[in-house]
């Protein structure tokens, strides 16, 4: 072993440990002086506060740990919605910026420059307060398609009431598994015989037919529960039944995806422009159609440029979702690092848990994206 190589690293490690040791010792002494006890026992205590919107069953009689889960799931929900929409908008706008049509590429450019240069918090406030005020009261709203009600109190949509839901889910799982098999078979066939199979149309067929069969033969049955208006007082109304999407969730998801989409659009543009022109010309010269050029030659190479910076944007979006507290969306920061922290006063414990949670979320996204990046990397054959 080479001491010269290891020694600086050991010293660095020692310094890091000392710094952490100093801070935790300092915190310990200060807390002792002020009579503050340390411990995570509070997590099992009754939380005694309610939350507006929760994916799992929760009320104040549950524990603080359950409140933590509620916040975490809400953070994940808004992040996933945000990531999906940001990706869709980002890809569309990114490609639009490369369009030869002057109007389309200018519109896309204006969108990108406008939304990425305004602070996100301001955009969240805009979508929540300015757009919220423009929405009608529950009693004044015009239903969309007769069943969707967009009001100031939220977006009320019909809910499905299922019979034999499990059979339906099995049918979807079966469809997905058979699609995977079809893909493997199609790939083999192309490698061996050079014949392409229309995988996409077969996949769409499978995912439609199997669930439909479950309706016909599996006894699956779904009825729709439409929201109904309910009077609360002489001037106050709300809707009952169906699913309620709170306006806080909608504004936050909207602001996050519109903002992050601008950065993703730039990543996409950079990726496509990063593929050399010769590749496209070579592909066209061997007789591939423009669609095939994009799908088989340009995109696989562009993706390798697009993925790493887009991962950063996904991470940013997840972390930015913590601005939710400003508009009352009950995410991890509002529920756990907000209300729970206030009620228990356990600042160090709660902030440490919250930090670790965001760290784990970010690392999970990174690991997934790195795996995907490796998968699409050039494989030497």
């Amino acid at each position, binding site marked *: 072993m080479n001491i010269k190589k290891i020694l600086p690293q050991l010293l660095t490690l020692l310094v890091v440990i000392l710094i952490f040791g100093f801070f935790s010792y300092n915190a310990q002494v200060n807390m002792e002086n002020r009579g503050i006890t340390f411990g995570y026992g509070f997590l099992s205590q009754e939380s005694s506060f309610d939350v507006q919107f929760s994916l799992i069953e929760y009320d104040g009689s549950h524990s603080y740990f359950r409140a933590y889960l509620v916040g975490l799931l809400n953070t994940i929900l808004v992040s996933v919605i945000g990531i999906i929409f940001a990706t869709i908008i980002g890809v569309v706008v990114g490609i639009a910026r490369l369009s030869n049509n002057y109007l389309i590429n200018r519109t896309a450019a204006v969108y990108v420059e406008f939304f990425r240069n305004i602070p996100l918090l301001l955009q969240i406030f805009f979508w929540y307060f300015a757009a919220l005020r423009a929405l009608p009261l529950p009693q004044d709203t015009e239903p969309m398609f007769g069943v969707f009600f967009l009001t100031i109190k939220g977006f009320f949509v019909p809910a499905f009431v299922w019979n034999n839901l499990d059979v339906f889910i099995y049918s979807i799982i079966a469809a997905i598994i058979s699609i995977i098999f079809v893909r493997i078979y199609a790939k083999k066939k192309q490698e061996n015989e050079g014949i392409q199979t229309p995988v996409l149309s077969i996949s769409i067929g499978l995912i439609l037919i199997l669930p439909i069969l479950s309706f016909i033969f599996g006894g699956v049955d779904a009825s729709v529960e439409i929201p109904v208006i309910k009077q609360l*007082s002489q001037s106050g109304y709300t809707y009952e039944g169906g699913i309620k999407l709170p306006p806080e969730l909608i504004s936050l998801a909207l602001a996050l995806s519109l903002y992050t989409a601008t950065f993703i659009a730039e990543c996409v543009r950079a990726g496509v422009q990063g593929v050399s022109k010769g590749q496209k010309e070579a592909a066209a010269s061997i007789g591939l159609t423009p669609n095939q050029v994009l799908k088989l030659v340009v995109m696989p190479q562009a993706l390798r440029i697009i993925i790493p910076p887009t991962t950063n944007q996904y991470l940013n979006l997840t972390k930015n979702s913590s601005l939710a507290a400003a508009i009352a969306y009950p995410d991890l920061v*509002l529920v756990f690092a907000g209300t729970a922290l206030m009620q228990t006063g356990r600042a160090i414990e709660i902030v440490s848990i919250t930090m670790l949670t965001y760290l784990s979320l970010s690392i999970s996204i990174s690991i997934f994206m790195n795996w995907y990046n490796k998968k699409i990397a050039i494989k030497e054959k």
Partner: protein
Amino acid sequence: MFKYLKQLTSLVAMVAVLFTFTTETMAAKKSKTLKNTQKKGFVRCGVSQGLPGFSNADAAGNWTGVDVDVCRAVAAAVLGDANKVKFTPLSAKERFTALTSNEIDILSRNTTWTLSRDADIGLTFVGVNFYDGQGFMVRKNSGISSVNDFKDGVSACTNLGTTTELNMRDFFNSKGIKYEPVTFEKADEVVAAYDAGRCDTYTTDKSGLAAQRIKLSSPDDHIVLPETISKEPLGPVVRQGDSVWEDIVRWSLNTMIEAEEYGVNSANADSMKTSDNPAVKRLVGAEGELGAALGLDNDWSLRIIKQVGNYGESYKRNIADTGILPDRGPNELWTKGGILYVPPAR
């Protein structure tokens, strides 16, 4: 013999000098916060982000309100100048951490005194400067005239991290009403959301409702329901572990209330030095040595009354004259039918 007597007297004198020296500075020595405050030359005070009547900054950055006056009283007592205060606006969420982590020395921010806050998180409440209770505000045209008119599905806007959230749950649960809590970090956002129609009711301390109502687009279209669903004694808070500082803040507040009780105000304080009532004379520093026990000079209470005024003056200036709560309700002296009652300063 005379030789010894001389030695003895000098010894006695020395002991006496030493003794007075120690008694005078013991308080100062024991209180790190007092020493630091005197060294810095200003009192570090945590207040709200803007609650008219309690702590609110005008366009020029001057803070006014009954909570602000508690800090000013402490500055007058400790530093001799009621203006030597540095105000730090804090959200409900930040307030206790700011105090325990030594960023401020007094938290005077419409904070409810509860057992868990007092005992569990390294804080000490020193008294009550406003007796409040949680109430509900609704739109006049809703026809709701009592909390019993609320129905399942009602949405209630309120602030994050307050006792309000807990009271609200207790209240709606006891009535068996399903409700939707919408909690914001800042009061301004609660007002904006309620004003927009996001919520059917806005719930917080009644004084807060009265103060925030002014900020609504048309205040006259809203009413505060008569019921009070909780006890909210609001008062200043200090860090645990500095009992001298705790005493200074407690007695600065008590001085203001007692001054009102004895009819001493900022205008007549000087002339009260010749009063016949010993309690009044003690209050303006003309009798007794009360300041020394706190590590202060004897004019500390006179300065509070002259520079800040008594509790009644502070209430009138900040809450009554601004139209927030003209009626003092429980915040009237015990001699006049209220519940303001402080231990005697003697």
